[in-house]
């Protein structure tokens, strides 16, 4: 029964921590736009939390360049245990339009394990919310 309760609680309040691993901030403003009245991700209990300690879902945007590789790992370690990672945008998935640049990696999955990719450059706020909810569905 306890497991039931935990699952119910986890799917109802996914606290999100956003990290910008060298992104062009197109995806970031679409993620922040999903907080605004027109899309309002808070309907599903998602809240942008200030510190990685409080978060369950780590949302990463941007190609990971050499400088952000280590901080990204460090922040991933700081998230408490039942954690998920969502990579937003083409850059986070494969390096996007910057694939081949000398300072850019192959995307997020080389650095940290990723649960969910949201394609698009940048994905619309509805797509980001759909991705978060789909992740919760999987947790269910």
């Amino acid at each position, binding site marked *: 029964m306890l497991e039931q309760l935990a699952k119910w609680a986890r799917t109802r309040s996914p606290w999100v921590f956003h990290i910008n691993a060298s992104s062009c901030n197109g995806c970031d403003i679409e993620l922040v736009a999903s907080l605004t009245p027109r899309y309002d991700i808070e309907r599903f209990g998602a809240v942008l939390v200030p510190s990685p300690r409080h978060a369950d879902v780590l949302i990463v945007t941007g190609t990971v*360049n*050499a*400088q952000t*590789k*280590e901080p990204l790992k460090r922040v991933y370690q700081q998230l408490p245990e039942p954690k998920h990672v969502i990579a937003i945008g083409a850059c986070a998935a494969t390096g996007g339009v910057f694939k*081949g*640049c*000398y*300072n*850019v*990696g*192959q995307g997020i999955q*080389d650095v940290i394990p990723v649960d969910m990719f949201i394609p698009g450059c940048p994905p619309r706020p509805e797509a980001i919310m759909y991705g978060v909810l789909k992740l919760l569905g999987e947790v269910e």
Partner: protein
Amino acid sequence: MSENILEQIAKIANETNSKVVTLRKGETVVEVDKDNLRPLITRLVQDLKLRLLTTITGLDLGQEIGIMYHFSHERETIHVRTKVAKTSTAPSIVSIIPGAILYEMEVHDMFGTGFEGNPWNDKKLLLPDSWPSDLPPPLLKSSKPAEIRKRLHLEAEPKQ
């Protein structure tokens, strides 16, 4: 107004024995060698009130590094170009135009030409901290991106 700008530039140019090349209507290039770069720029800033240094561009011209200082005046864009040998240093103009500090750091990062007199000369501006010191600066024609990525461990690690 723009006519007398060109005459003034021509007058300043021949005093500091540099060559004026007009590219097209809105752009003029003043070629000057390394030594009297600073006097030319001080004259430009004081006499013509060319206060806005837009940026400093580095060019890889085979053996030499071309450094272009772009000044934007109303309708004119004035470029000052000098040539510096590949590993040698260029005079810094931070004392004349303090705003040039970041641009010089960028050229130092990308092309490796040091600027004497720039307080933050040894600090990196754009390159990652984990940039190995023996790797050549990236924007030189000789450095290949794939090889840089390997040194920065950015290649896809085999799946554990």
